[in-house]
């Protein structure tokens, strides 16, 4: 009797051990992103979790953090333990290498399309009926137009806005920098409020009813139409704008520490899959997969796009326009 009980205990112990060993691992990821991607990743994360569970048997929980892109990059540099970053522009991601070597120097070449699984552009959102008849960039610099755009010092989207306006001004003024500066100075003179991030700017325009026009991401403008009603706002696509390429990267140093390198890498890779690209298209980002991009092409208005390369890349643009005492500081000081 005594021996039987002992055998039972041993057998039970082995069973528990075996069960424990075969239990699925549970991992957590932190995706530190910029302002308007909330809805995109809210939809993508459960899809990826399901995919990962089917592939590996492991459960993955993805937490999201959103704020202005520059602010988010600083948070990671100051200790926010992001497994992946999905920021608004390459300069902000690159800071993770430049300042703390949290990612490899060649991070942008580790994923397709310079690590940008989706693109977008900068458009206008106006009130229903377009009472100020805004059609293009030259309409929003007119006196009396009230603009809402975030602060380029804290928001990646705002830096895209700035460069889109600057690019338009150059193209329409024989590439004269002085004319572009005057144009953008006038634009910021019309700015009613500079929010710290794109979502804050949306709040100012949509909920607080500030301004005649919101300069924003194309996906953000569509989100407003979907959430707040096309009977209240209209999307105006300018003739020319910038192709925004928000990049993504595994924060290798932190992922290695968390033991999440594999799942974090797959999390970003899966954004390029048909499934991921479908979600991207549904959330009004421009998919990079040609087939999915073609499928969603009809939801975007045609416009002429130029790339950041025209400014010499992000490092050059950042130093010239947005560094302390750069062009933005000069013109916003003048515009205030």
């Amino acid at each position, binding site marked *: 009797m005594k021996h039987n009980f002992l055998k039972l205990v041993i057998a039970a112990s082995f069973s528990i051990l075996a069960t424990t060993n075969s239990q699925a691992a549970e991992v957590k990821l932190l995706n530190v992103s910029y302002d308007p991607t909330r809805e995109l990743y809210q939809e993508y994360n459960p899809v990826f979790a399901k995919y990962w569970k089917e592939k590996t048997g492991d459960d993955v929980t993805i937490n999201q953090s959103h704020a202005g892109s520059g*602010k988010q990059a600083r948070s990671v540099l*100051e*200790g926010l333990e992001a497994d992946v970053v999905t920021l608004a522009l390459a300069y902000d991601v690159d800071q993770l290498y430049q300042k703390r070597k949290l990612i490899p120097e060649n991070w942008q070449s580790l994923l397709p399309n310079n690590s940008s699984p989706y693109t977008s552009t900068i458009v206008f959102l106006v009130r229903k009926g377009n009472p100020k008849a805004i059609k293009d960039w030259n309409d929003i610099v007119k006196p009396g137009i*009230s603009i809402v755009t975030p602060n380029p010092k804290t928001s990646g989207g705002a830096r895209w806005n700035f460069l889109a306006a600057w690019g338009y001004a150059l193209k329409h003024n024989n590439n004269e920098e002085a004319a572009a500066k005057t144009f953008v100075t006038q634009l910021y003179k019309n700015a*009613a*409020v*500079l*929010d*710290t991030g794109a979502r*804050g700017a949306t709040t*100012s325009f949509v909920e*607080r*009813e*500030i*301004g005649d026009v919101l300069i924003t991401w194309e996906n953000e403008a569509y989100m407003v139409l979907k959430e707040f009603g096309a009977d209240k706002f209209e999307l105006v696509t300018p003739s020319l704008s910038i192709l925004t390429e928000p990049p993504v990267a595994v924060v290798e140093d932190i992922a290695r520490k968390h033991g999440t390198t594999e799942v974090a890498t797959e999390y970003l890779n899966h954004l390029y899959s048909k499934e991921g690209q479908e979600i991207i298209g549904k959330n009004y980002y421009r998919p990079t997969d040609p087939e999915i991009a073609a499928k969603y092409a009809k939801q975007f208005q045609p416009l002429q796009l130029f790339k950041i390369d025209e400014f010499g890349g992000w490092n050059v643009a950042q130093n010239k326009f947005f560094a302390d005492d750069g062009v933005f500081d000069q013109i916003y000081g003048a515009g205030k």
Partner: protein
Amino acid sequence: MKPLQRTALASVINLILLGMSSAQAADTQALEKRIKELESRLAKMDQLERRLEKLDQAGLLSTKPLSLAAPAVPSPEVEKLNRKVNTLERKLEVQDEVNTGAFQKLPVFDVGENGFRITSSDKKHQVRIRGAIQADGRFFSEDGSQRSTDSFDLKQARIWLEGYVFKNIYYKLMPDFAAGGNILPDAYIDYAYDPAINLLVGKFKPSLSLERLQGDSDGTFLERAFPTYLASNRDVGIQVHGAFGKPGYSAESVPGPIDSRNFLTYQLAVENGAGDDGSPNNNAGATYDSKEFVGRVFSHPFQHTTPWLEGFGFGLAGSYGDSNTQALKNQATPIGRTTYLDYTKINSGYATPTADGDRNRLYPQAYWYAGPFGLMGEYVTSNQQLSSTKSSKAVSIKQENTAWQVLASYVLTGEDNTFGAVKPIQNFDPFKGTWGAWQLAARWSELNVDKNTFTVIDPSKSANHATAWTLGVNWYLNSYALIRTDYEQVSFKGGAGSDANHVSNRPSEHVFATRFQLSF
């Protein structure tokens, strides 16, 4: 509603018909016309009834009074003002957000009872600015032979930085401008990896004498007793130290060489070996290869038990080294600081002795602080090999000096007595009738010099035994300022006479000393 109406209409028709029969003069055509009118009105009423039912189902038949006036459309001016107010409100919100973010990143500058310190917003870095001034007066009585000089002295003038970087790398950089050539008593880095194991590197107090480890501003008397001076004052080296909590409790991380808080602490160090009461000059390196090994364990065995026993601690410290012709420092009386053991006053034909060979010390030590009471005691036995020459012939002496002390103190004003400084409950403010904290103290201390020593040094110039008793009153004006007043009498054996063959006792020393100290 519907049945009621129908009943009412039927009654009206019946009455009409009844009226007609009773009149017996009705015109048939007029009657038919009248019936048709009534039927028509009944149909209209049915229609009305159906419409009312629909409205009722739609919930539009509210019992609330109907609003008579249509909502006012704001004028363009009001709209414009609304937008301006909205914009201003939003601007303020954004500014608040920006300011909050900026404030969160600002370092915290803290000035108050805990001193002056600047801490980074993430609390990872801190610099604390500290300082101490000790201005002393010493007055000797019954000093007919003028052995000692009454004087005012600046004992300490220190301003120092201490703090940490990246949370667990502590540092202390403490110059002393009142010192002669050796102006840097402490300069160390302590990597507090875990309470159980820390690495201390630099110049610091060796973990030997309990009283030496007490903060320089925290002692009970102006100066420390005899046992302290048989160990080095400061030394340069590396120390591994750590602490353990009582089972069931976690240990507290205490950076630096002094830990009087944890259940069990240890220190293990390798140092150059600065000799008795020695402190190396800033630019002085070691003069020989072999190093001094220092170890100490100390425990508060009754921690987390009854309050009366919690402040009891005891331990044992020891050192071992192998010195090589190291100069010996003269020994002085505790408060008076007059030399009573002079290694330069030698017997005829001998050379000045040096510490040369094995040296070891053993320091059993204990204290007990309970409420206003405080007791501290330690004993030391110090063995060292001395060498000299006589007529070019090497002379080697084994010297075993011993010393001990017991001190007791009592705080009169209700504050807790501690190994650290007494913190007054009420600061001194005569206009408010508050008088700070007052402490009384008494100490007995003795030192015995090995008789072998006097093979080389002149017994008529140096005492072989000293006994000191001391009384003290400490007045803590506030957390930073205090006034100490001590009286000490030291009696000697030997140390006086015309030559080594006629030795008598050196006259007793009677000294009254006071100190005004500011330490923050």
